């Protein structure tokens, strides 16, 4: 049976790799793979070689307090393993794919074979994680190969302990020991151990120095070193120190010496896991189903479905059966966005913003806290321009999985596009308006020494309130255009591709979007600048009027660009043929 499972694992991985290689025959994947590979090389190996000079890998920098860091690592491991006994509440469940459940669970495969299969499968992830951790954690001397082995040992112990503890928790539940009793036991034990260490440190060690007046952290490190190296803590951490010791091996000899105990711990854990006679099948089936649903939801852009069970949601407004059909798609996507995006919720948000703004303004009048919060609000508003369109995916990125249904509707393509993009644009604009209102309320009468009269503040706020929705709309058009024009490059549907090529594709798309967004802003910025200058001279150098004129000119240009974008994307939607990318 073991051979069959090995066969399954080996051929699954080999076929996946082969499919990815075959996919490179398509230029879009080849191009993505080249960009992704270059990025990875530059990020990992390029950075390494750059520091050491061409052709050489630099040594890892040595640690200042190696013994202390090793003790801290042991303490972190203790906490991680302890949490495995405290936090979870479910019965033991091994995560299998739906196909594995369908094939292996009804087959004459023993529980032990399934555990072996699971352990074997986890090795790929452990090896990858070990490599990754080695590359991002370049410290402590030694070399990279030794460090990978050290990480492999540690991660294997954690993986086995996770499995063993889940089996043990299930056995405890079966014997009538509830989750809370178990948590109380482990929390009590941890509390007692912590209390013993603190008491001992207070009685046996000299009083800790005043860390606040110390010029660097050496005093703190010295005191912590004493706590870790004497009294009860070294005994408590001894087994955990054994598990992390290979990470600190400076050469092969040290690693060999340190790795013996790690292999022993792995062996003990293995025996524990294999000898645990716990039924995990039923919980595993449920877990696999949930996991598959979450992956499907995530890849289709329905992030909400990942985190919580779905409930019917109150519609944001009453949808009449007559009128502009695009409003129906807007209405639908607002429902999808969640309960928070209703008129009532926004009304409350508005009042909370106003009240909070007034209170904060009066509280921070003298301390300058209000101005700092105003700057924070503006910063958040600017950041929302960058991150908002990536987070709010209540548009084609969510709906292309039901593209068949959308294409059936008797609507021109541009209306479908407009309906799709309106919901995230409205949500983003409403959030930005709330931030703008807060910034307006908190803005002091002078900014950086320059006076900021009320008229100018109102003009600036109104101008930003006009311009931001247009920018949002264009920023949202871009990922939607990517979804429609390059559906295979955007994460849509259940079987979104993975790998270097996808990473490269996403990088290309991201940079492409930034470039296009910047270019689309240029005409508006130019028109705004011209309008500003004209208004400045025409209306007697009144800055507020000039600012509003600038904004109006920019809005006209941006609106025209958005309209053109919607029209062109509408045409692309009418031509959209998902089957060309994924023929049935």
């Amino acid at each position, binding site marked *: 049976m073991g051979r069959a499972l090995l066969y399954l694992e080996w051929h699954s991985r080999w076929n996946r790799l082969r499919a990815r290689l075959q996919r490179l025959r398509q230029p879009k994947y080849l191009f993505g793979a080249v960009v992704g590979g270059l990025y990875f090389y530059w990020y990992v190996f390029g950075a390494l070689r750059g520091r050491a000079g061409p052709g050489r890998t630099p040594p890892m920098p040595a640690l200042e307090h190696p013994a202390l860091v090793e003790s801290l690592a042991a303490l972190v491991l203790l906490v991680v393993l302890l949490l495995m006994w405290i936090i979870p509440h479910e019965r033991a469940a091994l995560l299998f794919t739906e196909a594995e459940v369908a094939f292996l669970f009804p087959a004459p495969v023993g529980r032990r074979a399934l555990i072996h299969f699971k352990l074997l499968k986890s090795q790929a992830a452990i090896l990858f994680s070990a490599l990754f951790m080695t590359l991002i954690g370049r410290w402590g001397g030694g070399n990279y190969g030794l460090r990978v082995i050290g990480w492999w040992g540690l991660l294997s112990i954690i993986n086995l302990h996770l499995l063993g503890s889940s089996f043990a928790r299930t056995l405890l539940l079966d014997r009538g020991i509830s989750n809370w009793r178990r948590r109380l036991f482990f929390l009590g034990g941890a509390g007692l151990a912590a209390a013993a260490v603190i008491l001992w440190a207070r009685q046996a060690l000299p009083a800790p120095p005043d860390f606040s007046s110390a010029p660097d952290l050496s005093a703190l490190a010295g005191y912590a070193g004493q706590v870790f190296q004497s009294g009860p803590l070294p005994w408590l951490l001894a087994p955990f120190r054994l598990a992390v010791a290979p990470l600190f091996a400076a050469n092969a000899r040290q690693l060999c010496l340190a790795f013996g105990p790690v292999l022993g711990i792995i062996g003990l854990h293995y025996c524990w896991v294999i000898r645990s006679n716990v039924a995990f099948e039923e919980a595993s089936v449920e877990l696999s189903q949930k996991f598959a649903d979450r992956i499907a939801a995530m890849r289709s852009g329905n992030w909400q479905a990942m985190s919580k069970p*779905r409930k019917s949601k109150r519609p944001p407004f009453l*949808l009449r059966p007559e009128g502009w*059909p695009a409003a129906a798609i807007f209405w*639908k996507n607002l429902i999808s966005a969640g309960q928070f995006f209703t008129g009532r919720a926004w009304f409350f948000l508005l009042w909370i913003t106003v009240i909070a703004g007034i209170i904060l303004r009066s509280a921070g009048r003298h301390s300058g806290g209000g101005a700092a919060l105003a700057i924070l609000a503006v910063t958040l508003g600017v950041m929302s321009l960058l991150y908002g369109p990536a987070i709010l995916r209540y548009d084609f990125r969510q709906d292309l999985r039901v593209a068949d249904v959308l*294409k059936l509707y*008797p609507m021109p393509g541009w209306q479908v596009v407009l309906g799709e993009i309106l919901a995230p644009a409205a949500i983003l604009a409403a959030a930005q308006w709330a931030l703008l209102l807060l910034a307006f309320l908190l803005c002091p009468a002078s900014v950086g020494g320059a006076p900021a009269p009320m008229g100018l503040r109102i003009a600036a706020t109104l101008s930003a309130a006009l311009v931001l929705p247009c920018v949002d709309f264009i920023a949202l058009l871009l990922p939607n255009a990517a979804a429609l024009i390059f559906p295979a490059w955007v994460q849509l549907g259940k079987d979104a591709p993975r790998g270097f090529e996808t990473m490269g594709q996403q990088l290309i798309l991201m940079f492409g979007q930034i470039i296009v967004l910047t270019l689309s802003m240029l005409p508006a910025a130019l028109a705004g600048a011209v309008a500003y200058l004209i208004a400045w001279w025409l209306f007697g150098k009144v800055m507020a009027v000039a600012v509003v004129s600038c904004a109006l000119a920019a809005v006209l240009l941006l609106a025209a660009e958005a309209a053109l974008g919607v029209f062109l994307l509408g045409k692309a939607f009418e031509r959209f043929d998902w089957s060309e990318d994924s023929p049935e």
Partner: protein
Amino acid sequence: MEIPPPAIPPSAAPCLIEVSGLTKLYGDFPAVTDLSFSVRAGEVIGLVGPNGAGKTTTLRCLAGIIPPTRGLVQICGHGMGRDPIEAKRRLAFFPDEPRLFDYLTVAQHLTFTARIYNLPHYEETARALLEELEIADKADKLPGELSRGMKQKLAIACGFLHAPSAIFFDEPLTGLDPLGIRRMKDSIVKRAAAGAAILISSHLLHLLEEVCSHVLILKDGRKIIDGTMDEVRGKFSEAASGANLEEVFFRATGENKGP
């Protein structure tokens, strides 16, 4: 009780679905090649063929979901290429898997569909459809809370809300219980009797025999034959009246029936 098959409508009945020279290529692969046929009001035509014959591609082209590479599709006189909005206003397409919005309730699906098709007085029709399909008590449920059969019924309610004249079904009985199957057959025959032109793709040949007035057999994207049941039987069977559609299918497609 046996469902009476729909009567063959008179040749004077208006032609609601017209397909001429339909071709669909995926790259160089021809999924459908030069397909021409028409469906009159009141006709129920069964689209049959082995796997990969191009049935689903044909239906998706007719419904305007994917553009054909070549050829003309007319729904109630409106060309899908030139006047897709008016053509789509008159058709309904039911895929094999009901495609619903996870976050809209049953009632919200109908409200949404009414706005899309601009149906000012949809409430009465919606209520009648929900009752006919026996999901009236599920109005506040999300699709995730419905069984597969009920999801199918919701998709059907949404599709029938605007009283389409041309109806396309792709494997309409998948996932339905025996009562659901009976009701679906009744519903198809009823819509045809009311003057709709219906095209059904299915592998369930006995279903097609029960509800279809005509049959169209596809193989490798090409039409082998189309006509009334009796015409097709006559072409591929020695004893025209005795052969069933399964026999005709195997003879027409040259597939091996097996032991």
